[in-house]
């Protein structure tokens, strides 16, 4: 009997070994950077514009506000920029489709490398619930800052950086300054 259970449990552990896909290490950062740069260059050549991310989120918010309170949205210049004259759906937007692509591209890459995993990204010294609160709070600051700066790391730092846009370089330097200045206070979350 004991040998039988031993055999069964051995069978299971073997199965687990087969099923468990080991996550591959991330790619060389310089090669990844060249790949990313070529995607950006392709966007410049084909579309005459760069990449973005926060703009798509703005379209989503503008669409939501327009649906719930159309008059309120129309009276606000910020929402109006995304809604337009009201004849086209704000979600039928270049950046919205691009970000849907980001979602799919990230999933494909993660699947190929065995890196799809339900998880919470955090350091070992913080509880999950706190980490999730910080993710929300940081996201809120990020959303606000990105709108004030007219773009985020994609639209300003990456795209504007490559185009030598003066405002984008100011922005980029300040992003790093903000991150490094505040890193000390956040060390419990990450280290």
């Amino acid at each position, binding site marked *: 009997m004991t040998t039988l259970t031993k055999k069964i449990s051995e069978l299971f552990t073997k199965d687990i070994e087969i099923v468990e896909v080991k996550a591959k290490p991330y790619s060389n950062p310089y090669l990844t*950077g*060249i790949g990313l740069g070529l995607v950006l260059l392709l966007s410049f050549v084909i579309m005459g514009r760069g990449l973005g991310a926060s703009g798509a989120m703005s379209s989503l918010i503008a669409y939501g506000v327009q649906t719930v309170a159309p008059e309120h949205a129309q009276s606000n210049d910020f929402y109006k920029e995304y809604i337009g004259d009201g004849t086209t759906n704000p979600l039928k937007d270049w950046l919205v489709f691009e970000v849907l692509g980001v979602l*799919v591209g990230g999933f494909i890459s993660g699947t190929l490398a065995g890196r799809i995993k339900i998880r919470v990204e955090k350091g070992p010294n913080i509880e999950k619930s706190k980490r999730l609160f910080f993710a929300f709070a940081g996201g809120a600051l990020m*959303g606000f800052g*990105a709108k004030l*700066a007219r773009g985020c790391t994609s639209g300003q730092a990456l795209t*504007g950086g490559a185009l030598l846009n003066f405002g984008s370089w100011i922005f980029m330097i300040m992003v790093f300054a*903000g991150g490094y200045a505040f890193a000390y206070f956040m060390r419990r*979350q990450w280290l």
Partner: protein
Amino acid sequence: MNAPFYKFGYFNSDISLVIAFLIGVGFGFALERGGFGSARILAAQFYLSNMRVLKVMFTAIITAMLGVYYLGVIGFLDVKLIYMTETYVLPQAVGGLILGIGFIIGGYCPGTSVVSFATGAIDGFMFIIGALFGIFVFGEIYPLISNFYTSTNLGVVRLPEVLHISYGLTVFLVVIMAIGAFALAEWSEKKFAFRNPENER
């Protein structure tokens, strides 16, 4: 001059949405390959132990920058037709600072949070909800801050014009600066290797 293709009317706006999706797939794929679906790796940039953010970003910037420059020189790409946001010095500086603080607190930026969510990070999902909330707050108080938002406007202005040097020399200096930054990054990754989350794998 043949490019940008869209500006020369080679295809309509519906096709442009298909292209948007495909370019997005390439963007998301590259971000995930680079490790940008992981908040721990992104945040480690600010503890000097994992410099992927700097390496990937600056390699991408110089790749695209050199491409735009040389395609312009050979007369294939009309650089002036590429859309650029106008510079607003103060709002962009303050916005960048807030965004940087949000980066170290939240662990992502908008693009990378989408990739992390796509690979199953719950904190990435929370970050997206937070970013949407932040944009909503911005929209609601926009009438109060629109004066600041539109202040210190310099119009569309590039680094060569600010520095009073040629486009080519600016490109060259950025490449030199990036190579210097890469050397520093390699050095600091060695020095702080003991707390690099990538080494735990």
